[in-house]
């Protein structure tokens, strides 16, 4: 009798133990092990879609599904993650929605101190979000100089300080405690040192700089002049020296760039190209031509190439290819799909 009781206790302990060890693999919510597709929408209203990594389950409008009539805002530009939270930047509505990244339930909104926020990164419990401020067509006097970094304390979701950039600014990455910032409307790579809270001397790279990535101590920037030949600019972080890879104008306007497994992937027109991160010349032929008519978002991850084919006033599409360009899945997303964000 006593023995059987002991056995029962032992059994239940082992059962609990096995249960809790199982928990590590159990999804933390409906949106674990998949990726979000950001659909920028209109100035006032965008949407977010979700697909599981195995591409078997798809939700077109996750935010509405989980948060009802609450408006996420418009011109959704970027999602960044910290811990179990996801931060959705709505540039058209001057707000960042803080949601649980696994359940997508709204936790809070960062709704003051932002003016046309664009992209953000997280470092040591703080988010650094680029704000475009007013644009020059809205305010010719200061539109090109009022851009700033909003430093957000993620413990209380408030903007605690602002760093004036005296320039235009858009995309940002963080590397070794420094922020690297590009924008198509100025010719500089801006550098901000988080620890010393100071802007370093910028590096002149040329206008139209957009996609920015870091690999092995080198910053890669894709320049995409409208109607002209594109260029990949490589800036060595250690000495700020520059090397350039010219893209032939025959391939059309450059679009986006991503780096994965020591390869640089970039798009021009609707085709995808790849070169080694150490290459000094452009690809001679495309990997493949995508089915997209208007490439508006692009990511390479885990042997898959993700392309957003944006439409406005109609549903967009997301095409997912393997690295040789074989279509794995086509998804019907919301208006203005512009990016993929992985939740693993």
């Amino acid at each position, binding site marked *: 009798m006593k023995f059987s009781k002991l056995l029962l206790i032992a059994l239940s302990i082992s059962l609990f133990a096995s249960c809790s060890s199982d928990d590590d693999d159990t999804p933390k919510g409906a949106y674990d092990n998949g990726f979000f597709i950001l659909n920028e929408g209109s*100035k*006032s*209203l965008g949407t977010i879609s979700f697909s599981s990594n195995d591409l078997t389950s798809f939700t*077109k*409008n996750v935010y509405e599904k989980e948060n009802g*009539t*609450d*408006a996420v*805002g*418009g011109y959704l530009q970027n999602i960044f993650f910290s811990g179990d939270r996801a931060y959705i930047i*709505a540039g*058209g*509505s*001057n*707000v960042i929605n803080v949601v649980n990244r696994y359940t997508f339930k*709204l936790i*809070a*909104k960062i*709704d*003051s101190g*932002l*003016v*046309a926020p664009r992209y953000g990164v997280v470092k040591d419990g703080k988010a650094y979000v680029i704000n475009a401020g*007013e644009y020059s*067509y*809205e*305010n*010719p*006097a200061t539109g090109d100089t009022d851009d700033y970094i909003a430093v957000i304390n993620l413990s209380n979701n408030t903007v605690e300080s602002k760093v004036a950039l005296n320039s235009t600014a858009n995309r940002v990455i963080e590397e070794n405690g420094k922020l690297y910032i590009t924008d198509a409307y100025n010719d500089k790579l801006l550098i901000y040192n988080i620890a010393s809270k100071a802007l370093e001397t910028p590096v002149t790279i040329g206008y139209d700089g957009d996609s920015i990535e870091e690999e092995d101590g080198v910053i890669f920037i894709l320049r995409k002049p*409208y*109607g002209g030949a594109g260029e990949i600019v490589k800036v060595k972080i250690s000495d700020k020296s520059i090397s350039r890879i010219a893209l032939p104008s025959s391939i*059309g*306007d450059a679009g986006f760039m991503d780096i994965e497994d020591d390869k640089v992937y970039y798009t021009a*027109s609707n085709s995808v190209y790849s070169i080694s991160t150490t290459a000094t010349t452009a690809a001679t032929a495309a990997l493949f031509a995508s089915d997209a008519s*208007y490439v*508006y978002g692009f990511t390479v991850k885990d042997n898959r190439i993700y392309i957003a084919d*944006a*439409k*406005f*006033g*109609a*549903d967009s599409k997301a095409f997912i290819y393997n690295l040789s360009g074989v279509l794995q899945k086509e998804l*019907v997303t919301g*208006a203005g799909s512009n990016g993929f964000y992985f939740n693993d």
Partner: protein
Amino acid sequence: MTIKLKVAFCFLLLCQLISAQKDSITSLKEVYVSDKNLKKYSSTQSVLKLTDSIINKNEALLTDLLNFNSTLYFKEYGRGMLSTVSFRGTTSSQTAVIWNGININSQMNGSTDFNTISGSDYNSVSIKAGGGSVIYGSGAIGGTVHLNNDLLFINSFENNLKLDYGSFNTIGINYKTSISNKKWSTQIGFSKNSSTNDYKYLDRYTWRGEQRWNQNGKYDIITLNANVGYKINDNHIVKLYSQTSNTDRNTSLITETDTKSKYINGFNRNLLEYDGNFGKLKTNFKTAYIFENYQYFSNINSKNYTYGKTENLITKLDLDYTLFKSTQINGIVDYSRTNGYGSGFGSHVREISSASLLVKQDLGSNWKNELGIRKEFTDNYKSPLLFNFGSSYKFSDLYNLKLNISRNFRIPTYNDLYWETGGNPDLKPESSYQAEIGNVFTFKNITWTQHFYYIKIKDMLQWVPGPGGLWSPQNQDKVNSYGTETLLNWKKSYGKNNFALTATYAYTISEDDKTKKQIFFVPFHKATGAVSYSRNKINAYYQVLYNGFVYTTADNNADDIVNDYTISNIGIDYDFKFLDSSKLGFQVLNVFNKNYESLENRPMPGRNFNMYITLKF
């Protein structure tokens, strides 16, 4: 004395009862309409005329009047905000708005915002369904909306004052005075409609749990009218119409954190007209100057704005010759010169001339035929030859059959042609073929009008992203619209009790020729109804509007729709018989407190109230 009073009283009641759906009203000989061709060349199409009594029962802005009394569908960016129309499944720039015979759609964007127009500034508002480009030019594809001021040449001095006060500090002031004798006729009017428009959103709360409300939604619309007519003698009349308006509006927010913006727009219109009667030959000469402008402040706290303005000079000569007693011919030539300049499209001049020929034939009193052709000449685009042919045959007092076919168009706007960057100077006009059959049944107190139409539109102008992400307009899709419209009208008196009922219903299929999908923001179904009852000094009415669901994207995805809604208003007024007439009225709008949207995430107000005083003296 008593008989006179009774007659006057009957007339007054009649005025209240003259219902919306009538092909024409009894025309007094002393009334001079500004747009003669509207009456003359509309016997083969349907015209719905809304007069004072209907106009006064609705909220001040034109959207509300037309929404509750016609088949037109409106997309409203919140109460009092930008409001665009779809008529017979067409786009907002395929309905032409005509002011005293002159097309006033914006030269810049091609359409009219129906929340910038106050209905009470006009003697009547008419809605003509179907093509009308031969007479009214660009945009008359789905139909035309006519804003008319009629001048009266009788000895009279009349003042009308209407004061409104309603929920959300909605204030309406409308004053009209007309002074006339047999030689002179003058109308002067002033209207001001404003609201802080800060209504609560039903059942909506922010993430902090606060009640959501319509922020940054205030508006203020002021319009001045002055119309003068002088009869040189019975055969020669000169008229001058003048109107100035300013709309100062903030744009309501979708999310509380949106940047607050505002939009100011205004216009000044002047029209000088001469009518000459030389026996068989009649002439009508019009010259008009129309100025329109807007300023958009993307941030209301900033002094910076973008703007656009156009000045449009129009001259038009219409010669009307009576060939036989039954046949009349109109030859019309016109010339229009537009000077446009704006922060988005630089400075451009556009000149358009046109010539048209209209024939009207009355074979007996029952058979009427209309024929028209028009050709435009301009360097800006290639213009198709437009035509219109219609026939109306009255088989009996009970039944009237109407047939009409036409070719119509919509020209590219300043934004389409010249927008920097992206404007495309090589655009063609949108053009359409239209055919319709109309059936009018009249039985005792009932009039039932049933129209069937088919519109084929090609070269639809659409802004699409090109290589490198630059948006540019292209002549792209083809659209087929077809459907049916029902207008029903009944009135009856039982002793002192007077009843009137009007109803409209539109069934609309408007589909992309290639995808066969319904054009977004075109409802399959729309219906309106109005019942009114009057007895002695009391007048009570009920209005109902059903708007079917609309898709919000071209994909016709079941998830992307604006839900259907049914909303009702009730009103009652009492005439104290002080002065000529002095009514005190009270209205409950959206009486069932329906939570609805005209556009996604643009909630409309719940139940709200309005009271008004109308004085005639």
